[in-house]
């Protein structure tokens, strides 16, 4: 029966003694609690009722950069019982919002930063992004803002690539990318999904009527990007220091701890679970690579990589089997994709990403190799743009460099097939003339969506691929 006006004001969940709260009359609003840290205060998720453990940000009444005076409503928080306006207890500028509208934060965790003066806003912003995880409970006290003046932290942080904020604006009233000349037509839900999944609509090909982008296109783009999407939202600040990039991956793993998923892990997890809804099957093939190896040796000096060769071979095989390059998204129809875009899985710190070699069937092997190098460099630097990782139509995954001789891959939702490539190894084989010889052979294993691609399709495709690889002159044409 707790109505709005009757909420308890006790704050047993708040961690610090400096926290105060008081009711402001009958309106039922609460003062925000803040903790002094230099001159930047953290605004915490208040405890609006005795049973509240977490709160959802309904809406931010004020925007970043707004000047707040004492007692002003800043944010509307939804507790387990009601929605309440929450007021600030201090004067200052709302410097950085750390928990976006619609997100949930634990009681007592920081949801925004309040700067005392306007000058401190950039400082607060960088501080906010350094502890970007909304649930991060320990305040960023030990890791103050990067002090080195040479670092471009503030400006770098203030312009993160496609931040969720900018796409939010797109959802409400204007279409994005209209300035680039090409108008993007996307349905309301597609736009919403694009915002949620952080997919840039400009890079998505529409499959709806009149080429409009519909929800499934965005889902497919996000699925192909799999883990990639979050990468672009990592503040570039961390790129400048490669040690910082590695930092989260290697340092002492505390055994026995429970670690919440990072955004990337969350995205991967979601995609993997989603993949279970696609009925897949696998077909393997052993391909002799002697000819390919010798070709590789010959043109390696020209910068050609094995990945590019494999991508090219696959693309050429796909031109003859368009069904293997198709995709089924709604379970009722499927699309023969107009271009052959080979996505190649690359492991990066904390996940993987799938840079895409577009039109791999048409681009010559040298350009393709250059392109690949460029993509890999960008991927390592976490600078890949969405259109460079989310429009693959066929995926390659190669674990041969680890000596893995065979494995199978999970089909990324929204694509038709993925090929797992094992190591090429010298193998004793019986030849047709009855002799025994040694040939380099590798095993490939294709996972495909059986709703649209059947066993015979894959078998024929693999046969074509084997022919191309075993007689690779086509590759350098």
């Amino acid at each position, binding site marked *: 029966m*707790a*109505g*709005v006006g009757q909420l308890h004001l006790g704050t047993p969940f708040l961690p610090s003694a400096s926290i105060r709260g008081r009711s402001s009359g009958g309106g039922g609003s609460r003062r925000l609690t803040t903790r002094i840290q230099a001159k930047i205060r953290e605004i915490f998720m208040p405890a609006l009722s005795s049973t509240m453990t977490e709160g959802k940000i309904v809406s931010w009444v004020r925007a970043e950069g707004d000047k707040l005076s004492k007692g002003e409503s800043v944010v509307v928080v939804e507790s*387990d019982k009601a929605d309440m306006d929450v007021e600030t207890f201090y004067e200052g500028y709302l410097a950085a919002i750390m928990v976006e509208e619609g997100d949930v934060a634990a009681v007592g965790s920081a949801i925004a930063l309040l700067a005392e003066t306007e000058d401190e806003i950039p400082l607060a912003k960088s501080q906010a992004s350094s502890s970007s995880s909304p649930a991060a409970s320990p305040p960023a006290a030990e890791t103050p803002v990067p002090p080195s003046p040479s670092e471009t932290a503030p400006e770098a942080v203030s312009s993160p690539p496609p931040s969720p904020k900018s796409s939010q604006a797109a959802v409400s*009233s204007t279409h994005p990318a209209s300035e680039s000349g090409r108008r993007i037509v996307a349905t*309301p839900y*597609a736009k919403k999904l694009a915002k949620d999944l952080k997919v840039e609509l400009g890079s998505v090909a529409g499959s709806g009527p009149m080429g409009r982008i519909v929800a499934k296109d965005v889902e497919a783009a996000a699925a192909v990007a799999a883990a990639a999407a979050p990468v672009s939202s990592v503040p570039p600040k961390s790129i400048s220091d490669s040690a910082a990039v590695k930092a989260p991956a290697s340092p002492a793993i505390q055994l026995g701890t429970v670690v919440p998923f990072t955004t990337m892990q969350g995205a991967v997890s979601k995609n993997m679970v989603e993949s279970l809804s696609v009925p897949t099957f696998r077909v393997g093939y052993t391909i002799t690579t002697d000819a390919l190896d010798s070709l590789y040796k010959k043109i390696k000096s020209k910068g050609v990589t094995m990945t590019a060769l494999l991508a090219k071979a696959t693309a050429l095989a796909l031109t003859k089997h368009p069904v293997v390059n198709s995709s089924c998204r709604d379970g009722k129809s499927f699309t023969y994709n107009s271009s052959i875009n080979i996505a190649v899985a690359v492991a990066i710190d904390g996940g993987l990403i799938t840079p895409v070699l577009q039109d791999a069937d048409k681009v010559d092997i040298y350009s393709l190799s250059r392109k690949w190098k460029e993509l890999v460099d960008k991927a390592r630097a976490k600078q890949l743009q969405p259109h460079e990782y989310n429009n693959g139509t066929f995926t390659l995954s190669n674990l041969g460099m680890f000596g893995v001789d065979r494995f199978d891959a999970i089909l990324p939702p929204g694509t038709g097939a993925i090929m797992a490539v094992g190591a090429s190894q010298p193998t004793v084989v019986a030849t047709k003339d009855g002799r025994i010889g040694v040939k380099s052979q590798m095993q490939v294993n294709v996972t495909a969506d059986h709703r649209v691609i059947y066993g015979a399709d894959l078998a024929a495709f693999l046969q074509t691929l084997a022919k191309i690889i075993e007689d690779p002159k086509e590759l350098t044409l």
Partner: protein
Amino acid sequence: MQASLSLPPAAPRSDPGPAVFRRSAFRFCGLRREALGLRSLRPAGSTRIFRSPARTPSRKTVTAVSGNGIGSLSKGFDYDLVIIGAGVGGHGAALHAVEKGLKTAIIEGDIVGGTCVNRGCVPSKALLAVSGRMRELQNEHHLNALGLQVSSPGYDRQGVADHANNLASKIRNNLTNSLKALGVDILTGVGTIADTQKVTYGKVGFPDTEITARDIIIATGSVPFVPTGIEVDGKTVFTSDHALKLEWVPEWIAIVGSGYIGLEFSDVYTALGSEVTFVEALDQLMPGFDPEIGKLAQRVLINPRKIDYHTGVFAKKITPAKDGKPVLIELIDAKTKEPKYTLEVDAALIATGRAPFTKGLGLENINVVTQRGFVPVNERMQVIDASGNLIPHLYCIGDANGKMMLAHAASAQGISVVEQIGGTDNVLNHLSIPAACFTHPEISMVGMTEPQAREKAQQEGFEVSVAKTSFKANTKALAENEGEGLAKLIYRPDTGEILGVHILGMHAADLIHEASNAIALGTRVQDIKFAVHAHPTLSEVLDELFKSAEVNTGVSPPSVNEPVTV
């Protein structure tokens, strides 16, 4: 309490099942005393049409048996009362006129029931009943929380459309039957006012019949308003008239206008799988609602659904789909008039409001000039002519006068007019007329919005307070797992007068009447808060709301001055 056990004897129902506007028996609640007290604080003349309920049943019986024309006042006239238009307003007026013993005729050029029954509230409720269920069945999260498992819900479009159509014809038959049973003459044709107290009517191509009437009520209603530049083809660009037939479910539909009609259709279409884009000329969606309710509605009814919107823009030009091209909607900035964007969608629903239907009424014969199409009337619905004089014996009710374009408002106005004709002065308090939007969850309101109340308070120098309760704290709502919702009370802390009540939440449309009745009867917050509500029910949301209001005066003195027959 005895009140709940002592319903008045049920009125014998002479009319075979007019499900809608039967007002045979007043229901009593714990507030009955207040209701009968007819609080004297109300300005004279603004009493609503509540007579002593104890007398109602017998009165009704008599009139039903006595039939038409007995005790008639129609000296030298064909009828006492002729009503032009058999919509809900005309029907309500006719029923009450018969009850008052007036010889009554109703002229209808189209079909009985008017917009509400045939092309409005009624069929849309059928569609919304479907959309509500679809929404529940599709909400896996919600179902799981209740422990339910439903696999792949689907719908048959024709079946849904039939349901809406069947409902409309059923209600239409009910209305027609109730009029016939009461002895109201239904005259078919377009009614035209020939002169004071003189009406002609007839079908197109046939000679008109002239009849005389002591009093005439215009109740011709309204039609969907289509702004210039919008080409309606009835297939890809259409109004609510076509949409209610649900001939197809577009994948992507733009809805021009985000008022009641647009909002309800967005609920229907998104439940049936469409994506919706709102086009709203004002800077915010749902401009007519209390801002706080509007904000919550946006959070509950817009943001989580497959809906986006463009606000502050006009649809300058809308071209239906043809030659393989989609529907094109050219948007311009509402203020600067600069082109903003062109939408390409599968369909466009024009829900920009309704325009009065007053053409062919012959208003020129009696020197009446419409204002934006509306028939000018005073607060007693008496028609005003071009020189500002009242035209005797001529009234206009409902959408045609534009005072409050709601079916039940038209009916209430009609009853008020009949009261006046019968010699009882009556002014309808429009602030007591509730309104509802049947989205899921529903929105309802009565009286003023908070900004309106504050403005009035400033002008007249009184204070305004606001109380709110959440559905999240209501047991029944939580049992239904429908805790999303808010009830808001706007009142005067000095007197306890209720200025407005706004509800968004489960069954809000049914909940509002406790508040609208309180406003109509002048019940104060400090009195109504003692009324008992069954537990656990949604009505406790209002109970809490009234209880949370803080009124500075004590309980008002007992208002029952005379014994009440039960």
